[in-house]
């Protein structure tokens, strides 16, 4: 469903992504792991074009996203309106500051469908209520983010990402900033989503969670996918020496 080919990006001469090739099937869950600075977050941001990239292409269902190829061989960014439409096919959740602080939980979830997708208000709100109920927040619809716990905020953020009916969910270390006792409630929500066949790409440091829900794990090092495979193979029988060392250090 998502096909990434030859993705390259550098920040001021420093290569961050050094030719990434990765295919993600419909309903597949792929975890990205690696040391800090290995490019995993940048890769995730590039997939949603929150970051531009120097070379390579990203396809969704066969359609090349973000840049169109000119006959001269050059590439040109799509117009903002097209970019917006393409971005809406994915939902993204960050580590923190996910919610708009001046809006209630319900308003946060309605924002994208209402003003991005321009869907009617009533239908949007009904669906938002349903999604918030699904993440266990039916009783906090009108709470402002400041009055929600970190775990509740992340669950609202997940509901908001789902409100766009995305084909893929991009999760960037969504439990890293949480107190330990709040991690489980967010992981439970993600776990429940795996039953629905929505594709996910998650950047994570929670190895046991990655092992549990991911179909495949990609280990990134120096802007490349150094090893890719089933969770058991990656975590229990790593071949790459860098990966072996990485796993030793985090255990």
């Amino acid at each position: 469903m998502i096909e990434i080919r030859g993705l390259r990006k550098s920040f001021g001469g420093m290569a961050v992504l050094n030719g990434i090739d990765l295919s993600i099937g419909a309903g597949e869950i792929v975890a990205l792991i690696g040391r800090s600075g290995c490019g995993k977050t940048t890769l995730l941001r590039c997939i949603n074009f929150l970051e531009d990239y120097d070379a390579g292409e990203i396809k969704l269902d066969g359609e090349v996203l973000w840049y169109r190829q000119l006959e001269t061989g050059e590439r040109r960014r799509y117009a903002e309106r097209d970019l917006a439409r393409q971005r809406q096919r994915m939902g993204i959740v960050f580590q923190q500051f996910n919610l708009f602080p001046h809006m209630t939980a319900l308003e946060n979830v309605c924002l994208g469908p209402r003003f991005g997708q321009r869907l009617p208000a009533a239908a949007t709100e009904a669906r938002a209520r349903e999604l918030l109920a699904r993440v266990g927040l039916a009783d906090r619809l009108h709470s402002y983010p400041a009055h929600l716990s970190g775990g509740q905020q992340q669950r609202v953020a997940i509901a908001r990402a789902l409100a766009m009916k995305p084909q893929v969910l991009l999760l960037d270390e969504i439990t890293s900033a949480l107190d330990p006792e709040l991690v489980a409630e967010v992981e439970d929500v993600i776990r429940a989503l795996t039953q629905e066949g929505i594709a996910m790409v998650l950047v994570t440091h929670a190895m046991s969670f990655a092992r549990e829900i991911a179909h495949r794990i990609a280990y990134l090092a120096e802007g490349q996918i150094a090893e890719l495979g089933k969770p058991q193979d990656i975590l229990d029988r790593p071949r790459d020496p860098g990966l072996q060392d990485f796993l030793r250090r985090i255990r």
Partner: protein
Amino acid sequence: MEMTLFDLWVLTRAASISLLLALASIAFGTALALLLTPLAFAPWRIARILYRLYVFVVRGTPVLLLALLVFYALAAYWGRISPYAAGVVVLTLYLGALFAEVFRGGVLAIPRPLWDLSKSLGLPRLSILRRVVSPLVARYTLPPYLNVCVMAVKASSVLSIISVWELTFASREIIERTLDVYRVLGVAALLYFLMCFAIDRLGRRLESRLAAKGFAGERL
């Protein structure tokens, strides 16, 4: 000779003119700032340079000098002009630069994920401005904005130099007539204080309204 009750009445009238000048300049200055701030974030270098230049020049010039400059420049161009109109123009130019910097700071305070999310949700630019940036900047910048409003009341005293009849001008008139220096200046100071205090109270009211909405500021 002591100042009379009539002088007191004259001073309060003059204070109301000071307040009107300040309020008009705050309104126009805010409008000017709303036009200026976007320049600071424009994709064109020339716009950003113009913004920096404007703020640098206006903020770097004493208001007194700015007042004389604008008054004589306008007078040279249009002949006789109302010092009140010139006064509002001066304060508008001055407050515009200060408000623009306040708003720019507010835009910079928006956490990066919120920009990314606005884009990711596919919000059109106008919706981002209307639904996300404007309300956040308004909330972030309320205290420094009110601070500049208080400065506006006090800065209006400078306009006496271009013969705007306001509180400071009126005080000088009465002092020259009565020589009751301390009492007149004391009353004038009290009137300035009351005007600033009113703005401060209004600000507190707005702030506590926001805090009730879960937007106390300590948590983004």
